[in-house]
């Protein structure tokens, strides 16, 4: 087949969008938009990295630089990661539970709201240079001496749309788990709830110790769905907290625009910071870790074709992880001297250290599941899964070190936190896990679509792995030597590290370009457009019948 024909119809013409179910289509729509937003985030990252090295290369002033820095996590976390994860989960829950999704319409509304919301926030940063950063430390988001009020309004509106989209996703997930589809006998709620929270796993463990029969031999909900169920609790709480902060900021901005500005000191900045970080940390230390653990379990089972090792422990650990995630936010406030010492020690240090255990359990169970099934083929999904686990194995200890009163004093707000911890966790840990899911679900979601080039997939893997770890490592070295995050240096103080990090960043960007080209050539332009056209197949089932 000629290259031009492949570009139009995809590899061997194997992908035919007219065969897709509405759920397959909505999943692919969501994931494609998420992958495109990832590219925007990668380009933004390279722009900032270039500007770090030399402020004369790009025509950016300070305000524009920091507005890019504000947009960057919104685009990367919500526009990209949330979209890819939500797209995958809205397919996986009905797929694994063997029942139709509750609402296709709601799934479409979800991705549209998040995509439009991300665009609104990005526009507020790009056009109006609104730049309070994602941390939104009070009262910076309402500092109208530095920012245009309309920019703030648009930014918060965008975040609010993202959160409403998130609530739509949450409703759809829980509705899919609990509702009884027409023609099916009534599904009782209690066993679903007990299983969804992993309580059955805990009771099975207790009964085993007491020498009794297991509480539930056949859990009502499969383990990956338990992780989705559990992580979505944090997604819900996080959405409420971010929405509440957004409403507060909007009220201040609207009063300012109306000519009657409110007094920012009416809000206690430290209480606000605690509230905001409690919510925001439910993403970083809550839903991400829980969703990732669930994704590892699912991928390990799909790759090996075997049951998960130590299922009951995994279920119970997910429950513990949920509770742990509610009590760790203080590690973000170890340098806040007004924060009570007891909270710093318990929530900031000790409970946070427990994440080493919960994440360690997930790593152990996944690796053991793979190990028991060896020899395995070195497939794309396997190598990306191992890359993802390596990412978290590097990033979680870096975070635990940071969450220490002694080390935090010399590491907080340096490049250490954003490099070896955040970027390695997100880019290597989370993103490689998501790529593993993309590669394994690709033939399922496309009804037998074929990958254009394995060589390109190999390049994607190695360039992403080396680029991600390398970038994090050089940022970390700069951080240990005193380079602050969120700060521009004008005299090339850390240029050696920043140039090396930029080279690794460029490798990451290149790996994404190669991946996108590979996917486009796999599905073809006709297939890509077809995803966004109405489905010809009817019904809410995950896969075409028969």
């Amino acid at each position, binding site marked *: 087949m000629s290259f031009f024909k492949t570009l139009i119809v995809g590899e061997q013409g194997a992908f035919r969008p007219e065969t897709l179910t509405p759920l397959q289509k909505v999943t692919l729509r969501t994931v494609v938009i998420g992958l495109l937003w990832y590219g925007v985030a990668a380009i933004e990252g390279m722009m900032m990295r270039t500007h770090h090295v030399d402020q004369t290369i790009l025509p950016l002033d300070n305000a524009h630089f920091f507005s890019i820095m504000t947009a960057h996590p919104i685009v990367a976390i919500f526009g990209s990661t949330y979209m890819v994860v939500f797209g995958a989960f809205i397919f996986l829950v009905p797929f694994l539970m063997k029942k139709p999704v509750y609402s296709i319409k709601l799934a479409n509304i979800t991705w549209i709201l998040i995509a439009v919301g991300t665009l609104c926030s990005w526009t507020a940063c790009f056009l109006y240079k609104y*730049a309070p950063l994602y941390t939104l430390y009070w009262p*910076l988001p309402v500092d109208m001496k530095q920012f245009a009020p309309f920019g703030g309004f648009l930014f918060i509106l965008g975040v609010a749309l993202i959160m409403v989209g998130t609530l739509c996703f949450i409703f759809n997930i829980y509705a899919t788990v609990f509702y009884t589809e027409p023609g099916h006998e009534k599904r009782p709620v209690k066993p679903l709830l007990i299983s969804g929270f992993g309580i059955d796993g805990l009771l099975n463990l207790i009964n085993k110790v007491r020498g009794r029969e297991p509480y539930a031999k056949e859990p009502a909900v499969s383990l990956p769905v338990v992780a989705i169920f559990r992580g979505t609790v944090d997604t819900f709480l996080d959405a409420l907290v971010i929405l509440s902060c957004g409403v507060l900021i909007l009220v201040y901005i609207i009063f300012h625009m109306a000519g009657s500005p409110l007094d920012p000191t009416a809000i206690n900045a430290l209480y606000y910071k605690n509230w905001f970080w409690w919510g925001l940390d439910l993403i970083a230390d809550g839903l991400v870790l829980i969703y990732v653990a669930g994704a590892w379990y699912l991928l390990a089972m799909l790759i090996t074709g075997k049951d998960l090792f130590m299922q009951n422990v995994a279920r119970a650990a997910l429950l513990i992880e949920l509770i742990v995630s509610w009590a760790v936010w203080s590690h973000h406030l170890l340098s806040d*001297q007004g924060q009570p010492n007891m909270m710093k*020690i318990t929530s900031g240090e000790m409970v946070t250290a427990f994440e080493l*255990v919960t994440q360690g359990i997930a790593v152990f169970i996944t690796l053991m599941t793979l190990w028991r099934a060896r020899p395995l083929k070195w497939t794309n999904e*396997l190598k990306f899964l191992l890359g993802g686990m390596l990412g978290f194995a590097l990033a979680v200890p870096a975070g635990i070190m940071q969450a220490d009163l002694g080390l935090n004093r010399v590491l907080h707000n340096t490049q250490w936190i954003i490099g070896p911890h955040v970027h390695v966790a997100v880019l290597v840990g989370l993103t490689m896990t998501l790529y593993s899911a993309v590669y394994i679900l690709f033939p399922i979601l496309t009804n037998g679509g074929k990958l254009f080039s394995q060589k390109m997939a190999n390049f994607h893997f190695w360039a992403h792995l080396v680029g991600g770890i390398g970038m994090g490592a050089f940022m970390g070295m700069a951080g240990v030597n005193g380079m602050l995050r969120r700060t521009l240096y004008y005299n090339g103080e850390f240029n050696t590290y920043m140039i090396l990090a930029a080279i690794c960043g460029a490798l990451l960007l290149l790996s994404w370009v190669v991946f996108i080209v590979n996917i486009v050539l796999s599905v073809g332009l006709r297939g890509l457009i077809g995803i966004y056209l109405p489905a010809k197949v009817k019904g809410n089932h995950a896969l075409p019948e028969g």
Partner: protein
Amino acid sequence: MTDSIAVLGMVKVVYTLYTLAIMSLFAWFGYSLTAESRPKKIIRIPFYLYIALLVLIGVSIHILTFNKIPWVEMDLKRAEVTPDRTVQIVIEDHKFILPGDKVTINCNEKVLFSVDSKDLTYGFGLFRPDNSLVFQMQVVPGSKNDLLWQFGKNGTYTIRSTEYSGPDGVPPLKDAVEVQGCE
């Protein structure tokens, strides 16, 4: 008091060694997973021993730093300590306002830096001439932001805001703090 540069040096060494070890482990695991012949010897780590090890590592980091890094205990007990001197600093409208042109500190004095923000959330950090960080804290408006420190080496330090306060930023104060009298 132990200089923070020594602690940062230890962080570099420990984390680099850990990184190399964990990458090697994953490389070996990936190879063994796909190799046709099974590896002859495997280190068998019982699950509960592994968990105990993780708990031990998680807790012992904090116990170790509490005992070996002097500013941890000093920070937690600073309310009970009478400082040798207090340096009052204000940050307002994106500027540091010091009590004088320069803060001069005698060797081994216990100095309480008390920093007050009149508007936004800032940071307060002291940096060596090579840009490495001595210490930092957040400066939250309406909150008590104080940090007790003891200097054991002569030197001049730059004050920087370690927290973002908008694109206007805060200009650093070069050589704003001088420590003298150490041998």
